[in-house]
Structure formats: structure tokens, C-alpha cells
């Protein structure tokens, strides 16, 4: 270190100098100062580095708040675990959605993709008599393929993800209607032919808390994706692409290939959600989860992930989904009309994006 500095000062002495009077070449000559910071700025910086804090605070406050408003009924073990059950599907969709939004994209087709995968599974096993496990495999392939299809359209045709998935949402939905003829696959038929489809809907009672296996799977998916995003190069590249695609490209990341793989992984997560959804609903209905697309985006946004990409955490989306669940449950136990649940949710979305915008200003 010292030797190097000596070499340099020697080297620099041999250089013609035009600006020797500028700057101070003392021992601190490599320090770069940060400016003065106000308290608000400090908060901004803190939230900036820890984007999951906001949804955690909102979740805790809303649980406490609804505890006061709605009373003990809200706080019962049964109700709290019911909330977790209710958010399972939206939670899994939100996990997939997070991957896409982190790349500065958006996926309007996740719910249609999920229903399509569940239709494949149900049709094959219940109506065509194919064993359950191969049928599930086909469902998974359907998810990966539809996801990759979105990714290929985004990268090959250079279309905005919003437009691509707006198109594929309708395409997938039409395919669902085509394959099912608008008919549901009945719960009793599934139970008789492929009981494995109902596995994730089975309940387990842990001291008053009733969880479905699907709820555990959802949490498992979040943990898995957390490791994927934070402990592997693939995950770091997801963030890099969303942050600055051009910079990622120049850093040697094959961004197009990465994007297709991200959409495909999201598709796989959605397909797992399809299996869980059959257990949760019991039947396969072509018109179910129609609002799942937007609900998943809501959960991700409330969970602190930026729609502009590169910023946010997967766990935040779990909290986002739980916040939505807590609001719905709390407001309905408090006896408020469903319209006020929508109203509150709408406010939450706007506040969440507003906070995100404010936090993002930190980098300028």
C-alpha cells in the first residue's frame, strides 16, 4: 500500500501539472465525503436500505388496529390462521409476480396462467384418466411454457411486458374456456379420481391455529425464492436487470436469456399455485381467480417492491399479501361493507407507491 502510494507520488511528480492548486494531496486524498443529513433524510436512507420495513410496520399496525376495532374475534387463533389460508393463492401468485416486477416488468397473466395449468391437470387426470403425477407434471410444464412464452415475447419482439401479458392474459383465458367449454371440473370428481389434487387443501390444527398444507407450501416457496434471489448469482442478476438493464448487459449478463428464465421460473411458481388452488377451491373452475392478476400486483406493491424494478424483497410480498388479508378480514369482522375493503385497499396501494417514489429519490 505504502509502496504503491510512493510509486504514484513519484510518477505524478514527473507529470506536468496544471491544477496542482486544486484539491489537497494529504493522507486523506482518497476520501469522498457524504453530505450532511437531516433526520428525514436519515429515515429516507434507512427505508431505502431496508425496503421491507414499511410493510412490516403496516402489517403490525393493522393487526393491532383491527384488534382494537374488531375485538377478540379478530385476534382468535382461528381467524388469524384463516387469514393465512385465505392469502395462500394470492401469496403464491405474488411470489411469482415479484420476480417479474423486480425486472421492471409486470405480469397481468399470472392468474390466467394458473387457471390454465389447473385445467390441464384436472382435465388430464379426471376426464382422460391419466395418473395424477404425470398430470401434475404436465401442469408444471404448462406453467413453465406459458411463462417462457411471455418472456420470449418480451425479449424477442421487444414489447413492453404490460402489453405482452395483457395479450397473453386474454389468450390464456380463451384457452381455458376452449379446453373446459366453460364447464367446471367438480370437486367430487376430483376427489374420486385424483385425491392428490386436494392434498394442499388439507388442514392441520396446531393448538387452535388451523393451517392448510398449502399455507406451509406458500411459505416454503417464499423462503426458497429468498435464497434464490439473495444467495445465487441468478438472483443477483434479477436485481441487476431490473435496476439498469444496459449496465447489466455491459457487466456480462446475458439479459435476454436471463429474462426468459425469470419468466419461466415465475411460470413454475404459478403452476405450483395451480395445484394448491385445486386443493383450496376443491374444484377447477374456468372463471375462478379472475382478480388474481391485480391482487398479486397489489400484494407486491404494498410489500414494498418498486414497479420500476431492481428494488424490493420477496418477503415483502408475503407481508403485502398478509396485509391485504388482514384488511379484508378485519374490515368484514368489524361489520363494514365490502366496498370499504376495496376503498381501504385502494388507499394502501397509492400510499405504498407514494412511499416508494419518495424512497427512490434518495439516489439523486
Amino acid at each position, binding site marked *: 500500500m505504502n509502496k504503491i502510494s510512493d510509486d*504514484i507520488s513519484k510518477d505524478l511528480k514527473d507529470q506536468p501539472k496544471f491544477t496542482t492548486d486544486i484539491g489537497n494531496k494529504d493522507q486523506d*486524498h482518497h476520501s469522498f465525503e457524504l453530505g450532511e443529513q437531516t433526520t428525514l433524510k436519515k429515515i429516507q436512507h434507512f427505508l431505502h436500505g431496508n425496503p421491507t420495513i414499511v410493510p412490516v410496520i403496516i402489517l403490525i399496525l393493522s393487526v393491532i388496529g383491527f384488534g382494537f376495532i374488531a375485538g377478540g374475534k379478530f385476534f382468535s387463533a382461528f381467524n388469524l390462521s384463516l387469514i393465512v389460508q385465505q392469502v395462500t393463492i394470492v401469496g403464491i401468485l405474488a411470489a411469482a409476480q415479484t420476480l417479474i416486477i423486480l425486472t421492471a416488468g409486470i405480469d397481468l397473466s399470472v392468474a390466467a396462467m394458473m387457471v390454465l395449468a389447473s385445467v390441464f391437470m384436472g382435465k388430464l387426470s379426471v376426464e382422460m384418466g391419466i395418473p395424477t403425477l404425470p398430470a401434475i407434471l404436465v401442469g408444471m410444464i404448462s406453467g413453465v411454457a406459458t411463462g417462457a412464452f411471455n418472456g420470449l415475447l418480451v425479449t424477442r419482439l421487444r414489447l413492453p411486458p404490460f402489453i405482452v401479458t395483457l395479450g397473453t392474459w386474454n389468450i390464456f383465458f380463451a384457452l381455458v374456456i376452449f379446453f373446459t367449454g366453460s364447464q367446471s371440473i367438480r370437486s367430487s370428481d376430483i376427489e374420486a379420481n385424483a385425491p392428490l389434487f386436494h392434498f394442499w387443501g388439507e388442514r392441520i390444527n396446531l393448538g387452535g391455529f388451523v393451517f392448510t398444507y398449502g399455507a406451509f407450501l406458500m411459505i416454503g416457496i417464499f423462503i426458497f425464492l429468498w435464497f434464490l434471489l439473495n444467495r445465487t448469482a441468478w438472483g443477483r442478476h434479477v*436485481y*441487476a436487470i431490473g435496476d439498469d438493464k*444496459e449496465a447489466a448487459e455491459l457487466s*456480462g449478463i446475458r439479459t435476454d436469456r436471463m429474462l426468459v428464465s425469470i419468466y419461466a421460473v415465475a411460470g413454475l411458481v404459478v403452476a405450483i399455485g395451480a395445484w394448491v388452488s385445486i386443493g383450496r377451491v376443491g374444484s377447477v373452475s374456468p372463471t375462478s381467480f379472475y382478480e388474481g392478476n391485480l391482487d398479486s400486483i397489489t400484494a407486491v406493491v404494498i410489500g414494498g417492491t418498486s414497479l420500476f424494478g431492481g428494488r424490493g424483497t420477496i418477503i415483502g410480498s408475503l407481508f403485502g399479501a398478509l396485509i391485504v388479508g388482514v384488511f379484508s378480514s378485519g374490515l368484514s369482522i368489524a361489520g363494514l361493507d365490502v366496498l370499504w375493503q376495496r376503498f381501504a385497499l385502494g388507499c394502501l396501494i397509492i400510499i405504498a407507491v407514494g412511499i416508494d417514489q419518495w424512497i427512490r429519490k434518495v439516489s439523486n
Partner: protein
Amino acid sequence: MEPILVAKNLSKKYGKVVALDDANLELYPGEVLGVIGDNGAGKSTLIKVLCGAVIPDSGEILLDGKQVSFTSPIEARTLGIETVYQNLALSPALSITDNMFLGREIRQKGFMGKFLRFLDKKAMAEEARKRLSELGLLTIQNINQLVETLSGGQRQGVAVARATSFGTKVVIMDEPTAALGVKESRRVLELIGEVRARGIPIILISHNMPHVFEVADRIHIHRLGTRLCVIDPKKYEMSDAVAFMTGAKEPPAN
């Protein structure tokens, strides 16, 4: 001494516009070669060809005496030609370590790394810290700090540290001081000195004459798509360079 990087007779046309017209360039080991030229002289095309972003219509590039060709910056980089872009090509929302190893991550040994593909965060942080301190940038306290929390000069430092960390043969720096204030510019010029002291030659493109004259060993003057001349900054004044660049004065015969 043999040049480490040679560009021979490079030509590039965009429609009828001739951006490079039989251009040459030589970079010798351990030197800082300044590249200056008026706007539209074709110096950025020259640099883009050298860093792989633009494919020339004709001409050849020799690295270490061997002919090379690349179709993307990534290929140029694998051969040892690193570029510090004007916009730095960093991901602001990722940490310093993440940025330094972006696309070249170190995985853990054994099962965790091979099959689960887990990153060796500790090894990467250590290596990153080592690289930064070698360049005298130790004052960046936290290696896991996000890049967007750094000042412009610090970011430049991270980009330079990244560019010089992976068996680099040549570093190309595009307008490294353009976005910086006076004090930060000074740090970056010192940084260039540190890199040269480590034996890595640098091609420095800049509009800032005092900066080029201060750190460059030789100055390549580009005009009308080709090399006009190479001057020794100790023997010429900045006003001479400007006169050569603009055609107000005849260049010296090389």
C-alpha cells in the same frame, strides 16, 4: 517495446458518414494514452470498436501481438480489454461487492456451490475489499453498502476497481471525470495513476485537456476519422493540441 494493443487501418461507415477512416492506434505496456479529438472526429467510434460495442467494416485489432476480433463488450472483456463506461455500467441498487462481481460471481466450494449454486459472499467481500484498498479506496467503510449511496467519485472508484480486477490487460476509460466536481476529478486522476502503477495500461478518452495533459504519457489526436498525430504532453502546450485538433496548425510529422 512491443505495443500491447494495436488497431490497424480501422474503417467504419454509417451510411455515407465516415466515422473511421483507416484509423490506427498503439498502446504500450504501462502507459496512459490520452485520446482527444473534436466532436465528430470519430474518437468515440474508435473506442467503441476497441471495447467491442461496434464492429468495424474493415481493419484489425492485435492484442499481445495476436489478432483478435469480438462482437460484443463481453467478448472483449473475456480477452482482457475492460472498459469503464461514462455511465459506469453499475447497478445502483446492488452492493459494492455485488457490482464488482456482477457476471463473474464466486460460488461456494463443494455441494452448496456446485449443486445449490450458492454464492461465496465472504470470499467476494474479502476480494472486493482487497481490490479497493489496493487502489487506495479504503475509506469506503462498508463493502456491502449500496452503490447508489456512494458519491460520483466513489462510484468511479468501484467501476475502476472492477475493471482492474480480473486479469485485465487493458483498461479503457471513457470521460471518467466528465460528471465529477473538481475535488472528485482529482481523486479519479490519482486513481488512474494507481492503476498505471500496477502495470495496467490505460486508454483515456477525455474532453478535459488539463486532465489529459496531467496524466497521459502520450496523447493521440484524432481528426476526421483518423489519427492525426501522437504528441508528448511534455513537449507541447495544450493550445498546440487544440490547434492540431481543429486543423488550425499543421501537426508534427511522426
